[in-house]
């Protein structure tokens, strides 16, 4: 390589001409990549990030934001990210200091974000909790501070096929014993008496909570006899054949599919399925509270849904405006509109009263919401560990292990912090 090439001159020129552009290209590529990290904020444009990726939800939120933009005299933009990616996306935005002005988080994820110091308490920004029931204030709170305003909340209820129950001459069950016998009677041929989700993800845990809580059990002590009792009840339903063995593999959407296909006479599910249920012609469904262990017990369901939060961006002026945006989005009228669209229950009690007159068929849901509980009120950001341990436990129990042993292991798992 040391000897000069015959056409050294031309080669040298060419090589130099190539070196420069190549270096420039590399620099430009590197520059573009790095500059993607920092984003500039526009003074009059505010962003709301949510998980409304479904067309209908995206449109409803868009309409709401258009009305609020007008009311507040600013421009509000919507940015929708798939629910499963919202949390990690928001964390990434936090590290690159490009958080949106309003962030809609799933209530079970909110404590993680709040614990990290990522949220501003809404009361500091001038929002109040007047007319919001205590359970729903708790739902949006972490460590005693109110961080998230819910527009609507949802919970689980018992959906039943009216025709099937009528034909069999059976009443809608209200206690565990009634539900077990009704389900057994309705189990025939391809049809199971009941469908629920015991899948290995949050869906399954969400569905287990009404049984655990109504039986007096608690997520802070998974190895208590009350939690075991609830799990034994699930096991009994499975043993009777009233639940399909596939229950451990079903998500809530699968449960809904089974119900619509006539493979289940009753199901535990949430109001977000109503839109799909109504689209199926000839399906005559009703809704009731989830049955309780003994007559007279409270039916305690889990509260679900998103809360609107103000991320900590360090810009006090914008944070105040963000709180105003939340005030508008969670205003009484907007709540009613959103609730009627999405089949959920308004968070504000005045709005809920109006909603009840407009959606009487969902009255059972409003009752269920009034006693419902937040999953994270007691364990806060630890919920994800509890949830993982619990799903592993009920799946083990449903596939053969004893409830006591499975739950004991789950409690150890939570305590040891793994």
């Amino acid at each position, binding site marked *: *390589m040391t000897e000069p090439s015959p056409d050294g001159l031309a080669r040298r*020129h060419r*090589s130099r001409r*190539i070196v420069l552009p190549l270096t420039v290209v590399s620099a430009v590529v590197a520059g573009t990549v790095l500059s993607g990290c920092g984003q500039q904020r526009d003074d009059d444009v505010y962003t709301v990030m949510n998980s409304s990726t479904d067309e209908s939800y995206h449109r409803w939120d868009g309409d709401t934001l258009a009305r609020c933009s007008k009311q507040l005299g600013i421009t509000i933009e919507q940015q929708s990210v798939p629910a499963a990616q919202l949390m990690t996306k928001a964390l990434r935005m936090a590290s690159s200091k490009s958080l949106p002005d309003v962030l809609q988080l799933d209530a079970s994820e909110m404590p993680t974000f709040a*614990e990290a110091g990522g949220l501003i308490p809404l009361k500091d920004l001038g929002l109040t909790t007047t007319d919001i029931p205590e359970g729903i204030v708790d739902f949006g709170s972490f460590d005693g501070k109110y961080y998230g305003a819910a527009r609507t909340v949802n919970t689980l209820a018992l959906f039943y096929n009216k025709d099937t129950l009528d034909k069999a001459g059976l009443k809608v069950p209200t206690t565990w014993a009634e539900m077990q016998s009704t389900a057994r009677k309705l189990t025939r041929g391809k049809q199971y008496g009941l469908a629920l989700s015991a899948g*290995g993800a949050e869906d399954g845990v969400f569905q287990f909570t009404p049984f655990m809580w109504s039986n007096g059990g608690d997520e802070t002590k998974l190895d208590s006899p009350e939690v075991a009792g609830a799990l034994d009840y699930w096991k009994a339903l499975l043993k009777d054949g009233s639940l*399909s063995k596939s229950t451990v593999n079903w998500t809530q959407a699968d449960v809904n599919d*089974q119900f619509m296909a006539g493979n289940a006479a009753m199901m535990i599910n949430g109001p977000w399925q109503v839109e799909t249920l109504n689209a199926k012609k000839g399906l005559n469904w009703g809704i009731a509270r989830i049955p309780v262990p003994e007559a007279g017990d409270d039916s305690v369901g889990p509260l679900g849904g998103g809360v609107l939060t103000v991320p900590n961006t360090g810009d006090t002026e914008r944070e105040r405006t963000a709180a105003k945006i939340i005030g508008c989005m969670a205003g009484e009228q907007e709540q009613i509109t959103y609730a009627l669209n999405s089949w959920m229950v308004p968070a504000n009690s005045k709005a809920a009263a109006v909603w009840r007159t407009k959606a009487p068929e969902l009255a059972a849901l409003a009752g269920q919401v009034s006693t419902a509980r937040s999953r994270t009120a007691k364990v806060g950001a630890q919920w994800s560990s509890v949830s993982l341990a619990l799903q592993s436990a009920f799946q083990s129990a449903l596939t053969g292990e004893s409830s006591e042993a499975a739950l004991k292991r789950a409690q150890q798992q939570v305590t040891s912090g*793994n």
Partner: protein
Amino acid sequence: MSSTTASAAAPPAGPKAADAGAASMPVNPRSAKRRRTLAQWGFIAPAVIFMALFFGYPLVRNVVMSFQDYSPSTFFTGEAPFNGLDNWNNVFSDGLFGKALWQTILFTIGSLAGQFCIGLALAVFFTRRFPLNGILRSLILLPWLVPMVVSGIVWRRIFDQDTGVLNSFLGTVGLPADTPWLTSTGMALVSVILVNIWIGIPFNMVILYGGLQEVPKELNEAAALDGASAWRTFRSVTLPMLKPVITVVLVLGFMSTVKILDLVLALTDGGPADSTQTLGTLTYQNSFVQMDFGAGAVVGNILILISAVFAVFYLRVNRNEGK
């Protein structure tokens, strides 16, 4: 290209005039050499920068992260205090890790064996000439075209114990129709492996089919003339000739199998009762469900290490082939 030649032909102008002046003097070999070295680095630079940015940085970052207490608050404060071997201890003391590791091994061996054997059999089958050969061969590619998550969701329906197509088919041909494909802790991993074999067959078949085309026909004919049976010919002539291709297929297959995540999430979510957790799903669960990024990084590093061992093995084998 044309611009280079055009400008090379054009008379040097501006600053280049100085170069031309220098060139008219006796050529300075040292500066020529330096320019050439510079040019060489200029060509390598984009690749080096790219690799460092998109492969080196995340890799190093992941290793560092596994020794840090990396929690959601890190994203706000930027602080991730080093905590020594805490993350590693936590991961190893969690019973789930051993289980996931064992299941990953079973999954990988099972998938590779199944994919390879069926893929090879089909590849040999398609080397024969028969009508519809091309059409059938392209039909077999279908699983390859379907995104992993879609396959997972479709197979979950097929495997449904009560309403799934598979059991109802088995029922109609008189076989037991209530196999708990995805709902028993003993069966779920087997089912996941079966789906992965189904997905992996096309890749194995295509590469091995390509390899078979390279085996000279004369060799088989010569073996046949020597009186070797078809099986003997295959074992003693075809397989040794295929060896380099087989190494490629197995090593690439290994790397894509050992990190399996999406398929398991779509089929079983790691359940029932963690019976289908693999190292891939464990990383996901640690990092994105529990938000314990340090623990997630530990499992991720172990996966990288396993793949790296096989990559080195692959490079060695290839180097020997070259000699």
